[in-house]
């Protein structure tokens, strides 16, 4: 079996060696094209036989870069290059000349090149690629370069969020948001759906409930919505969990990350644990506590990493609707806009009815629009019978 390189370019590095087992979709090599360094994926399972291209060599479209053995197939005897006229001969002197040319280009100020795999890895481990020395062709930063930079990095100062000044804390939060959201938009193929949900029954029910409660036990509509999301999620496991190492791991219960705006700017989305199992006064107390601690920068690390889905509510700011960016490695985010009276068609005709726009942003690698639509319909139904939540 043969793996082919999509566009022509210069091979930067092999990420596999002869004898390695490979799987469909795995990145096996990095090739530098005129525009960017790209990952070369393999389209079959098997074992790497021979690497027929050396780093620095130019690979033409359709050229054989490597042979892949079927599982169980014995490796062939090494063949002399001349026996295969259809593939570019390995240039013995060419690679030296290419390396020289690379150094020359770098000195002339050619822009920095980095492979997508190396960039992703650098993001994940917090390495600034601008400061990494690239050793690939044309000074391209390779995976190995990022690892070297990581190993050489001084141990970060023990500056915890608690001891940071507000300005430092703000900078840390901004950095964390930038890293997570950039990664999300790079890696997650989002799809978006929205649904206008009548809220009259939920508003009336909550008003009556709260009227009978002391102020310290009063529940906000945001909590009713969180509970409804958790209940609806029980039937849609594809929206609740983590996408890790190329596959989806559903979570057994919904720990909902609640987006909380920080007063200095920025936001965090710590987890409310097992929302479906708790009654609303309990959820209200926990949410209140979570917000207070989020703003005082005293969240527990488990709260920061446990969330299996995120809910963002911008209703208080008066927006109609919000379409969110998924927090990796989660696979979905539910957004609520403002609950307010709007023209709405009921069985009795056109009326002014309290409604809310609920949206879903979900990861298309894991679920499809059909699933998302059924989830929003279920959320709609749950919010029509708040007494059952």
């Amino acid at each position, binding site marked *: 079996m043969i793996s082919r390189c999509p566009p022509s370019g210069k091979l930067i590095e092999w990420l596999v060696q002869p004898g390695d087992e490979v799987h469909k979709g795995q990145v096996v090599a990095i090739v530098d094209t005129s525009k960017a360094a790209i990952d070369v994926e393999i389209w079959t399972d098997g074992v790497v036989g021979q690497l027929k291209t050396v780093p620095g060599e130019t690979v033409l479209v359709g050229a054989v870069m490597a042979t892949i053995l079927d599982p169980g197939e014995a490796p062939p005897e090494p063949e002399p290059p001349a026996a295969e006229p259809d593939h570019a001969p390995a240039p013995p002197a060419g690679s030296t000349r290419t390396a020289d040319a690379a150094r020359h280009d770098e000195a002339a100020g050619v822009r920095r090149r980095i492979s997508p795999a190396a960039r992703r890895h650098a993001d994940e481990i917090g390495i600034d690629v601008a400061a990494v020395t690239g050793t690939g062709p044309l000074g391209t930063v390779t995976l190995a370069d990022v690892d070297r930079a990581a190993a050489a990095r001084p141990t970060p100062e023990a500056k915890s969020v608690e001891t940071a000044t507000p300005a430092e804390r703000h900078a840390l939060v901004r950095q964390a948001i930038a890293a997570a959201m950039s990664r999300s938009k790079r890696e997650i193929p989002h799809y978006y759906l929205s649904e206008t949900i009548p809220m009259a029954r939920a508003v009336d029910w909550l*008003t009556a409930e*709260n*009227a009978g409660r*002391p*102020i*310290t036990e*009063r529940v*906000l*509509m*945001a909590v009713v919505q969180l509970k409804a999301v958790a209940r609806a999620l029980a039937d849609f496991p594809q929206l609740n969990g983590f996408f890790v190492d190329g596959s989806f791991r559903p979570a057994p219960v919904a720990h909902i990350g609640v987006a909380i*705006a920080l*007063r*200095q700017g920025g936001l965090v989305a710590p987890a409310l644990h097992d929302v479906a199992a708790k009654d609303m006064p309990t959820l209200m107390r926990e*949410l*209140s506590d979570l*917000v*207070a601690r989020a703003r005082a920068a005293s969240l527990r690390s488990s709260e920061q990493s446990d969330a299996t889905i995120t809910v963002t509510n911008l209703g*208080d*700011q008066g927006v109609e609707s919000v379409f969110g960016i998924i927090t990796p490695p989660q696979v979905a985010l539910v957004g609520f806009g403002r609950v307010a009276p709007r023209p709405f068609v009921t069985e009795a005709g056109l009326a002014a009815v309290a409604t809310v726009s609920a949206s879903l942003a979900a990861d298309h690698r894991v679920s499809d629009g059909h699933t998302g639509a059924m989830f929003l319909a279920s959320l709609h139904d749950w919010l029509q019978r708040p007494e059952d939540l």
Partner: protein
Amino acid sequence: MDDTELRTAIVTELHAVAPEVDVDGLVDTRPLRRQVDLDSLDWLRFLVGLHERLQVDIPEADYPQLASLADLMGYLRARI
């Protein structure tokens, strides 16, 4: 409790919820939520703080009467 003490109590509870607010810059007659970024949870925490300090329960139905600092002072003065 005189008006100055009552205002101090209100501002102290507001500061507990929104520590970044410049309390000296607050205008008593302007709607509070236009001067301070309070979401519905902040607002509830603020009212719970007032309740615990002054033992006044504030039903949800009364929220619309409580737009400004001056409104709050009038409302609370009649109930403590």
